[in-house]
């Protein structure tokens, strides 16, 4: 499946990505930036927790022009915190630029114990 796209305003500042995990589940996650060919991953932030006081928002890249066609990749290990039946997880990434939401990307599914899920988005500058 092709990577999803998000269009960045070439006159704007660097984009930000915020990760949210629904249903009050625990998550540990990484964010990487891949080159235009989908290789050479560079860490933006790794081994982050959604349970601490640190906001789960990160600025992506160093210059906007370099981000063109590059791929943002994030992955998370999500866990239930109790034994309630029929639990579901939601991993949501919100891409913003200058406070404007450019795209929201959800991955969801059932969870019994833990799940590792990942998602990608390709930046298009212009």
């Amino acid at each position: 499946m092709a990577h999803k796209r998000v269009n960045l305003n070439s006159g704007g500042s660097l984009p930000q990505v915020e990760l949210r995990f629904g249903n009050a589940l625990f998550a540990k996650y990484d964010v990487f930036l891949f080159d235009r060919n989908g290789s050479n991953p560079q860490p933006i932030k790794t081994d982050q927790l959604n349970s601490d006081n640190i906001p789960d928002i990160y600025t992506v890249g160093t210059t906007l022009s370099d981000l063109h066609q590059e791929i943002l990749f994030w992955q998370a290990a999500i866990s239930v915190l109790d034994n309630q039946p029929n639990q579901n997880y939601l991993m949501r990434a919100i891409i913003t630029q200058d406070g404007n939401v450019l795209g929201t990307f959800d991955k969801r599914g059932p969870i019994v114990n833990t799940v590792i899920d990942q998602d990608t988005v390709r930046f298009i500058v212009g």
Partner: protein
Amino acid sequence: MKTKFMACLLISQLFLLPRIGISQTVETINDANFVTFTFNSACEDCATQNNAGVYIVDVPSASTPALAKSQSLKDLNLQVTLKNDRVVYTFSFKPGTSPRAVWRKGATVLQVFFVPGADNLATTVSDGGPKPVAALNSSMAPVSDASLNSPSTANLVTAMTTTVAPLPSQTPNSSFTPINRDAPGSTAFTNVDMSVPESPAFTVLGVTPETVIRPTSPRAFATSLLNGVDVNGNFQSGLAMDFVPYLLVAGDDLTLRKYQTSPIVRLLSRSQFSFGTTKGASEDDKSMRLALGLHVALWDRGDPRLDETLMECLSTFRLPPPPTQLECELLDNTPESIAAFNKCQEGAEAARLQRAAQVQEATEFNNSVSTRCRDEAQKRNWNRSSWIIGAAPSWISTTGQTKDMHWNGGGFWTSLAYGFEGVPGLENRSQLIAHVRYRNREQVPDPDITGAFLSQDSLFFGARFRHGSPTFNGSFEYTFLRSRFAGQRYDSSSRLSLLFERRIAGDTWFNLSLGGETGRQDGRNNGFVLTSFKWAFSDRRNVPTPQ
């Protein structure tokens, strides 16, 4: 020797079958299929169990009963097995038949009915006899707990105005919890259930549905509701639903930090609704019962989402390394892009396989970490302070039409637990619980008329202090019950009990239990002092050892 004994036992029971008088039952329920067990004295330690097409009656060998069966019951395949000091009667029943055990006459008579029809479910009711399985999970008669279990309790219901009512309505797919004598707290004096039912609606209806719809999105909720009504807009029987409204509408936006920092969000997230319907058990009974339930944890210091130690434990999760190659895409038709795409594809399959293996490995590790961390949290928080309330109003429609619904009583529960947080010596080993429940118009079996049920109002209060250590366990319990049947006066009684268990050496324990009842109108206040030594192969305790 054992085989001979079993054969003799079986033959004697079969000879007795046609001889036992069962006139009372025949008068009330015509054409009913049932088996009657008649004991010489109250069978305090008997148990019944419904297990996948097989019904089991487990009695002490010293209390071997006489058996009889109804004339209409054909092809009864009864097996009798001797297991240590127990005699186990086993008989299979046809699919679509629901066994229903009823204890009568101060626990000296047990009748197992086989009620036909898919709308019935297996259940057990008691007029105060030995603890049946359904009572263990408190779904049928929450007030008939240990304080009510003595045979003399049945005498509380003498000279009542009886209303011949249909058997309590049931829903399909009910399940039983298997009997577990070795379960902590399974002794007669420590099994008073002081918890608030998770799904009060099912408790008020007296059912334990096997299939409960738990919608996790507004769409799933709406679909469930639509599937639960017929073409005329009437609720169908056997509908059982459990959901948290706040999580339905806002679960996607509920992050762990929001939950941890907002008391309102926590309260809403812990507010659970249940909904259930049941239908009459026979062709003549078209009644429909409906109940709504609310379960709210107002305060919970054992909430795992607030447990920093649990979060720290889960932070040891592993994430796999990032993929060496993401999915290949041809960006445009330039030679550079085509070359890059071809190069990407060369290593893509190997990268995909490598990634799958890494994800699998990390998931297995995380599963084991998560399970261990949550188990540890559960043990750590077993006695934490909390306050939980539950309520469930119910309605009945004698016609089965939703428009004819009218009030049919309800229930209210509350449990306040104190875990002695910050008190050295008690913090991890003790718990104090106070519990109140009120049931209005609860249908309980008439001890005198088979198939008849009485409407009962009851107020129950219980308090329990538990303390445990590897060498000493202790429990103090006080219970108070005030109840009345429709049109009768209230009867009140209370009970105190103390249990101590002290390890003498190795696996040898000294047990002491004492207590008594007061305030009974019939004057049959029982007292007891029991001492015993126990040498055990297992780690069974009469008083559960706090973790």
